[in-house]
């Protein structure tokens, strides 16, 4: 896959809150499908579908244990995608922190006028 197309698959996979929660769980170590399904009031097939999307995006892989087939995080791919999003996020968070300060200032002025 080309880099751009690959990254797109990764971003699409990360767009879903359940899949992000699965990845969050996997940062703590590998887990079987049953273990991953447990916290989500979701059927195993539904979870398996999410896992397939994550696998196709290269974000997770399967461990060696043939019976449990534990999934584990592919941190490198995740880091590649999050690096971009995080840079973008930081840029805007900088702006929005200035906006916080400005809004605070405007509200203080308004309060002064009211009293």
């Amino acid at each position: 896959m080309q880099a751009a197309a690959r990254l797109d698959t990764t971003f699409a996979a990360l767009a879903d809150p359940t899949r992000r929660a699965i990845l969050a769980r996997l940062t703590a170590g590998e887990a079987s499908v049953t273990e991953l399904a447990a916290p989500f009031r979701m059927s195993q097939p539904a979870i398996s579908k999410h896992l397939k999307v994550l696998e196709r995006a290269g974000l997770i892989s399967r461990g060696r244990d043939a019976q449990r087939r534990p999934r584990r995080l592919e941190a490198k791919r995740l880091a590649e995608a999050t690096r971009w999003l995080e840079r973008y996020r930081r840029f805007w968070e900088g702006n929005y922190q200035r906006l916080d300060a400005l809004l605070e200032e405007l509200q203080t002025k308004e309060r002064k006028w009211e009293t």
Partner: protein
Amino acid sequence: MGNLKVTTPSDREIVMTRVFDAPRKLVYDAHTKPELVKRWLLGPPGWSMPVCEINLRVGGTYRYVWRNDGDGTEMGMGGVYREIRAPERVVNTERFDQAWYPGEGVGTLVLVEQGGRTTLTHTMLYESREARDAVLKSGMEQGVAASYDRLAELLASAPRKL
């Protein structure tokens, strides 16, 4: 209030969500009154916004120019307002002078107030996936090293029922 969330719900979009501890009217003003926009929409340290012109009506244009106060580099952009519903919704196009991404972007700002706080959702829609990815890649030249810390920060936004 912090905790800006950035997501990519489709291959042509970037969505930002953030809560501000202020009524919607003020957040709206801060996005539409030039003297206020200039105070915060600045980017990295060392940049100022010498030009900020806003003609706030449907079909009206806006023009922003930023300047790097160190080396004098300027970066300009502008567009047209497509939809204005004060104080809750603004839709406008955007195009940069340097055209560092292909085509035009369309930004939709939505403000929802609840209990004196305002949730801002800003959606940027680009003409292609290439354009969207170019925007996400911008600023990557500094090549910040990946770390598990930042990864955890991003993932912390996931709903946890663990």
